[in-house]
């Protein structure tokens, strides 16, 4: 007993020492940054701005490499793109079939000039089939919701667009699930793959889509296949990661069971592993659906068409009402797809209900048949009649204009204040630090969070960003990300705390959060830019709104996870609610809270790329401007730089999350 307490005490002391050392290192890093900022002019300027004479011309190199690879590389006497395009053709077969079935129909013509057309399925039939599927997998509520969604597509006059999007998103999700599962299972079976795949996934998730649009376009041609590839690059990693994570959590006893029952390989994967990891997999599916639909708009730039194109057009012509209509259609589609996927995945096999199942199938079949007959009888049920659509008079845009006319001075004051007192000073400070003091400070921070290897990674990143001449642009991007994150935290954290403490608040916020997460961000760019004008202030606001949903969700989740018994114990010991909150709840929720910060920052990085469409200026501008100046390589380098910064932030915060609450000796494992 004595020995045990001795050991425990020694451990406590050493932990306390680590905490003290960590705090000292953090303070030293902050001091270094401040000193670096203050000492500008005293130290050689080369430590702040990388000298032009030593610049590494990576952008120009990348241009020629990419040109060589995409335009001139031959494999077996055929250009590389011929191979990728053939591959794309195969990928495109199911997609084109569904697109033709739902929206385009088929056009044939023979040599003598005769043409034949096969029309797409009638809208009523499509809606009926989808509603019937919803009913079969879930129930009446989802079926009605599905039906309402499809009628909504027709009512706003976007039936064809919605069907194109539905086709491409369905194929994308199906492919994403398959590839994601395979990659995830591979990651789980061969953990060494992680060293290779993790950085690749990180880059895929954080690189701005603008920077790879041109290569994808050359390799896969203009059209839905390119859009599919671009979407998969962005949406695939969460699914693969969720799969690997889920499988790792499957208890060993279940694996043993499979051995004892003599399951073969496929049975093991399908029946045992995937079904016991179901809840975590659903999280991956949810992410996949959300991300695929988030890419719908950017994908429309390279030929996906559909609803995304409509939202983009609304932004480009500042028609808020139209943007909202089309954006809401995307939201409804996302909820539908996810609900159906969720219902399919959580359905429990019911052996007793054979006749019941047959009855349900019969009812669904009868319903569809009736709809088919109705559609055959009257053309209005085949092609959605224009007379039924609601004309969008753009009441919303008029509302925004009214706000501008009557409260314009408020927005202008906000704009001026934020520019002069928040964004400009922040940017001046960040640009004043210089790459060298920043690199040193990051080394100290890496030791503070106990990851010496991070010191190497951060030094390399800072050095290369500075050496290719992107330091200043990075700071411009970063200042917007930081300002947006701070604003998001300023509102999101209190709301998250409230939501964690009261179920009623939670219900309200959770509805708003879902709405914010599924509504395409482009939609709320429109009123923001109409009210505040283009520029950094609008960008900051857009980032904050986009990231806020994540902040609220993660903060309330982190606080709710804290063990209630510990809180009660604190209460019994006579702690005031404030003490309980500061001394018990916050420290225990620390890893979750850091995760919230991390996710908010990642969302902010994701959004900063989009803010280029309302006039932000950093690396995100570089990714698009370079394309306009025929420098696809430069665009890719700028994109990779954004990606590198995001990954660096992520690594630091992840390390901080596993370290425990600053000043508290206990170590909380993640």
């Amino acid at each position, binding site marked *: 007993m004595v020995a045990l307490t001795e050991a425990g005490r020694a451990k406590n002391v050493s932990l306390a020492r680590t905490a003290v050392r960590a705090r000292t290192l953090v303070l030293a890093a902050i001091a270094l940054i401040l000193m670096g900022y203050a000492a500008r002019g005293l130290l050689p300027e080369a430590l702040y701005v990388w000298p032009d004479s030593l610049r590494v011309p990576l952008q120009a190199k990348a241009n020629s490499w990419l040109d060589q690879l995409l335009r001139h590389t031959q494999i077996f006497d055929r250009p590389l793109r011929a191979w990728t395009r053939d591959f794309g053709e195969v990928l495109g077969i199911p997609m084109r079939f569904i697109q033709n079935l739902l929206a385009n129909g088929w*056009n044939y*013509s023979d040599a003598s*000039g*005769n*043409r*034949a*057309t*096969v*029309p797409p*399925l*009638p809208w009523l*039939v499509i809606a009926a*089939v989808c509603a019937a599927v919803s009913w079969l997998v879930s129930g009446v509520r989802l079926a009605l919701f599905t039906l309402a969604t499809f009628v909504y597509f027709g009512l706003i006059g976007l039936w064809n667009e919605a069907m194109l999007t539905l086709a491409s998103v369905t194929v994308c999700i199906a492919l994403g699930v398959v590839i994601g599962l395979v990659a995830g299972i591979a990651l789980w079976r061969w953990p060494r793959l992680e060293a290779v795949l993790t950085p690749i996934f990180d880059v895929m998730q954080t690189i701005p889509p603008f920077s790879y*649009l*041109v290569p994808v*376009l*050359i390799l896969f*041609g*203009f059209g839905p296949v390119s859009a599919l590839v671009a979407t998969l690059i962005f949406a695939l990693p969460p699914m693969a990661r969720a799969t690997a994570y889920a499988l790792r959590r499957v208890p060993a006893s279940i694996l043993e069971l499979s051995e004892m029952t003599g399951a073969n390989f496929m049975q093991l994967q399908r029946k045992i592993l995937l079904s016991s990891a179901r809840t975590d997999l659903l999280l991956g599916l949810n992410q996949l659906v959300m991300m695929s639909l988030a890419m719908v708009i950017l994908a*429309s730039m*390279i*030929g996906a*068409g559909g609803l995304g*194109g409509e939202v*983009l*057009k609304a932004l*480009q*012509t*500042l028609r808020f009402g139209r943007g909202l209509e089309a954006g809401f259609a995307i939201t409804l589609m996302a909820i539908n797809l996810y609900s159906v996927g969720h219902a399919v995945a959580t359905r429990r096999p019911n052996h007793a209900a054979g006749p019941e*199942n047959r009855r349900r*199938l*019969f009812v669904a*079949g009868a319903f*569809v*048949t009736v709809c*088919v007959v109705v*559609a*055959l009888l009257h053309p209005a049920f085949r092609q959605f009649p224009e007379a039924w659509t609601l004309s969008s008079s*753009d009441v919303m845009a008029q509302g925004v204009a009214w706000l501008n006319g009557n409260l314009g001075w408020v927005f202008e004051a906000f*704009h*001026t204040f934020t520019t*002069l007192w928040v964004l*400009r000073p922040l940017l001046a400070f960040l640009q004043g630090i210089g790459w060298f003091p920043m690199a040193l400070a990051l080394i100290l921070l890496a030791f503070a969070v106990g990851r010496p290897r991070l010191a190497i990674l951060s030094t390399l990143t800072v050095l290369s960003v500075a050496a290719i001449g992107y330091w200043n642009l990075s700071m411009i991007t970063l200042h917007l990300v930081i300002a947006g994150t701070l604003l998001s935290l300023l509102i999101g954290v209190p709301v998250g705390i409230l939501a964690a403490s009261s179920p009623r608040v939670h219900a309200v916020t959770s509805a708003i959060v879902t709405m914010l997460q599924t509504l395409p961000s482009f939609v709320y760019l429109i009123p923001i*830019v*109409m009210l505040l*004008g*283009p*520029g950094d202030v609008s960008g900051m606001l857009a980032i904050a709104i986009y990231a806020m949903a994540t902040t609220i969700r993660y903060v309330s989740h982190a606080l709710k996870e804290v063990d209630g018994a510990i809180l009660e114990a604190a209460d019994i010991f006579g702690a005031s609610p404030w003490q309980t909150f500061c001394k018990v709840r916050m420290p225990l929720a620390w890893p979750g809270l850091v995760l919230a910060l991390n996710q908010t920052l990642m969302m902010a990085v994701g959004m900063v790329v989009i803010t*280029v469409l*309302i*006039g*932000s*200026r950093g690396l995100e*501008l570089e990714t*698009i*401007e370079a*394309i*306009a*100046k*025929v420098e696809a390589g430069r665009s890719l380098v700028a994109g990779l730089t954004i990606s590198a910064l995001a990954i660096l932030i992520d690594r630091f915060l992840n390390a901080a999350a596993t370290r425990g609450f600053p000043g508290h000796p206990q170590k909380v494992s993640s």
Partner: protein
Amino acid sequence: MKNHPRGLMLTTALLFATAGSAALAEGPTYQETVRIPVYNVPDSDFIDYVFGGLLTKAGYSVEYLKIDYTAHFTALEFGDVDLSPAVWGTTKELIDKTVASGAVVNAGSLGVMTRESWWYPNYVAELCPGLPDWTALKTPDCIKALSTPTSDGKINYLGTPPDFAAYDVERIEALGLEAHITLPGTVGTMVATMQGAMQKKEPIIGWGLSPHWLYGSGEGQFVEFPLYDDLCHTDPSWGVNPDKIWDCALSVGEIVKLYNVEFAESAPDVVAILDKFKLTTDDMAKGIARQDLDGLTPERAAQEWLDANTEVWSKWLP
């Protein structure tokens, strides 16, 4: 269990059989669909839809592909888009590189001259009397008069969307101007921001392009920069600043028509129509205004032009 899918297939087949009554028609020589890009920009889209409408009237089937303007050059080079009747000559680098690939041919001018440069509303001329000459922008009085609280004591300048390749940063540096750039992100915002500033009579200079209902109207003027020269963007020693390139305006361009070579081989008739296709500056300004001011879709604006100008376009068709 197995009944359901088969039933569904049957009904589907039934639908095809009845609804898909083969619509047979005598068509023109090129049987494939002609793919024309559109960009969600009122000026180019008007031209694209007019030309597309024209081909439809000639009996061709036409597909409009929504694509990013800069990305469309790549698509044209690799034959993912067949032709492009509305390419702004001011995006010279993109055109040159695409044509240099050998896969794309320039079919010449649409007959519309375009101008893209800095533009100011008339009341700004009162604030800075030396305009439209660009050297006026260097006088301290002008800089002060054209600044706003957030422009950092510099000229309040509204730039271009990122895909314009306007070379403003280079120009400002080469000409030694003191201007604070605000970027609009999209053309729609660029025009709306300029309009908003004009309503409040704020000091502003911004990128403008003509033909256009706002920039082409009498409500303002273009700044006169040193005229464009091919050497200006390659040779630093050319022009007022001996050390920098882009000490000049953008080239005054024409709207040109591009087509893919392989497409031209299989559809010479379509290219023949493209060769003859011309519009006037007034046609364009009206087409843009109908969209921006009256809220028409570009398809409708184009249809209006086609309806009103039958005798013009009927001569282009074989």
